[in-house]
Structures are given as structure tokens and as C-alpha cells.
């Protein structure tokens, strides 16, 4: 496999694994109706390639009790289905946020060409920076 294809594959897997928490994160800002939710997700670069695939994901989150739906009247047209985070959805999001932050920081630390990562001796770093 060429290197570019491998990186793309990793990104596909990452997207697939994190998208449901991105949905929960968007809902943490407040209830949304499906279309608005989908558009907010697809506004993030590269996150959603086919908007329609969000609906199966939302159904799964509802089956798992992480979100609930309510019907609300809209000013224009028929009532809309609104999605809301449940307490267990909030817990799932909080748990993932911790894990993700740790993971992201660890990968960043290895990827970033930090100047202070060269020969390092305990306690000497602060002196050099001043």
C-alpha cells in the first residue's frame, strides 16, 4: 500500500470511531433537530462525507439510550424531531473527552518536533528556556 493511502485509511478509521462522540458533543451545546445537527457536523472539514449516514448513527445512539428525541412544532412546516443528550449520553461524552484528550496529547507530543525533546536532562529544561 502506498503511504498516502495508509494515512487516509487511518483517518477513515478515526472518523468512524469518533463521529458518534462528535454528535454527542454537538448536542451538549443544546438540542438540535436532525437537519441542523447534520449540517453542523458536516461543516467540520472532512468529518462527514455522506450526510445521510448520520441517521443510522442517531438511531443507534437512541437505541443505546445516549440520546432521546422529542417532537416540537416549527414556525415553518411540519413538526420537527429534536435530539437531546441523556444523562448517560453526557457520561459517555465526558468519558470519551478524557480519553481523547490523553490520546491526542500523547500523539501530538511524538509528532511535534519539539526543540526541548533533544538531549534532555531532568530539571534542565526550565533553565534553558529562561
Amino acid at each position, binding site marked *: 500500500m502506498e503511504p498516502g493511502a495508509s494515512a487516509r485509511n487511518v483517518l477513515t478509521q478515526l472518523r468512524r470511531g469518533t463521529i458518534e462522540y462528535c454528535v454527542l458533543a454537538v448536542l451538549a451545546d443544546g438540542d438540535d433537530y436532525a437537519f441542523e445537527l447534520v449540517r453542523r457536523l458536516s461543516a467540520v472539514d472532512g468529518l462527514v462525507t455522506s450526510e445521510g449516514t448520520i441517521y443510522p448513527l442517531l*438511531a443507534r445512539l437512541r437505541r443505546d439510550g445516549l440520546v432521546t428525541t422529542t417532537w416540537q412544532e416549527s414556525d*415553518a412546516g411540519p413538526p420537527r424531531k429534536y435530539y437531546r443528550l441523556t444523562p448517560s449520553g453526557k457520561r*459517555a461524552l465526558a468519558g*470519551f473527552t478524557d480519553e481523547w484528550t490523553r490520546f491526542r496529547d500523547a500523539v501530538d507530543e511524538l509528532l511535534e518536533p519539539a526543540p526541548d525533546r533533544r538531549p534532555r536532562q531532568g530539571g534542565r529544561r526550565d533553565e534553558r528556556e529562561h
Partner: protein
Amino acid sequence: MTNVNTDPAADALVRAYLDRLRAASRNLPPERRDELLAEVLEHIDAALVADPQGGPEVATRNVLDRLGPPEEIVRAESEGTPYAGAPAYPTPAPASPWGGLEIAAVVLLAIGGVVLPIVGPLVGLVLAWSSSRWTRPQKAVASGLAMLPVLLVIPFVLVGS
């Protein structure tokens, strides 16, 4: 159908898209299938109100492009998540626990002792434990059954002595 789409060409595009989605989703549970079709239709209506640029036909084409192929949407229905462990549709049929090796094992364990005492059931035991179709508990049950005649004999031996 949609109160937004009065343009016949746009209407035909939506109809064709929903037909494809209906065909692709025929293996979903009926309630979920109806719900998915309603969700997608609602999305199309909302999207056409939000982005009417280019006229009905162009706008509809854009909305359907952004939704993605119906087959891909249905495929997402059966994608499980490692965290939530959601059930996948359709459930694949479990592999049969009965192959030639397993049948031979049971026959030897049951009546092998009649033909070849001790050696018969012993070979049955070896066969049972080398099965790749049986789980460990199933193998344990098979072994227990092989021991059953021996266990039944013990009380008589004890009483007799």
C-alpha cells in the same frame, strides 16, 4: 410528497432516490426502515428550504449528492460501534456445531465403550477436545457425559463392597 418540490424534474430525482433507498433497506426491520425513509425525506425538505440556490433541480441534485448513495446509508445501519455494542442487522446465521468430527466424537463417547471398552470413549474424548466448532463448555459437557457410566457404576461398587 414534499411541499417544497413542485418542479417535476426535481420531484422525479427525489422519487428515484427514495426508491433506491427503499430497495437498499429491504433487510432492515420494517419499523426502522419506515423511520429511515421518513428521516431522509424530512432532511431533503429541510435542505431544500435551507439551500434553494440554483433552482429546484440543481438544488435537489446538490442535496442528494450531500446525502450520499442510499446503499451507503443502509450500510451505516449495520455498522456496530465498539463502545456501545449495538446489534447489527442482519444477524449472520451461526455456524453449525455439527461436523463429521463432532458426530464421531458423540458416537464414540456414547457407545464406543461397547465396541472397544475404555479405548472407544477415550478416542471420543480426544476427538471432542480437538473440535474447532465446539466451545470449551460444550467440550466439558461432552466429557462429563463420557464419565457418566463410570460415575453410575461407583455407587454399586461401593454398596457391593
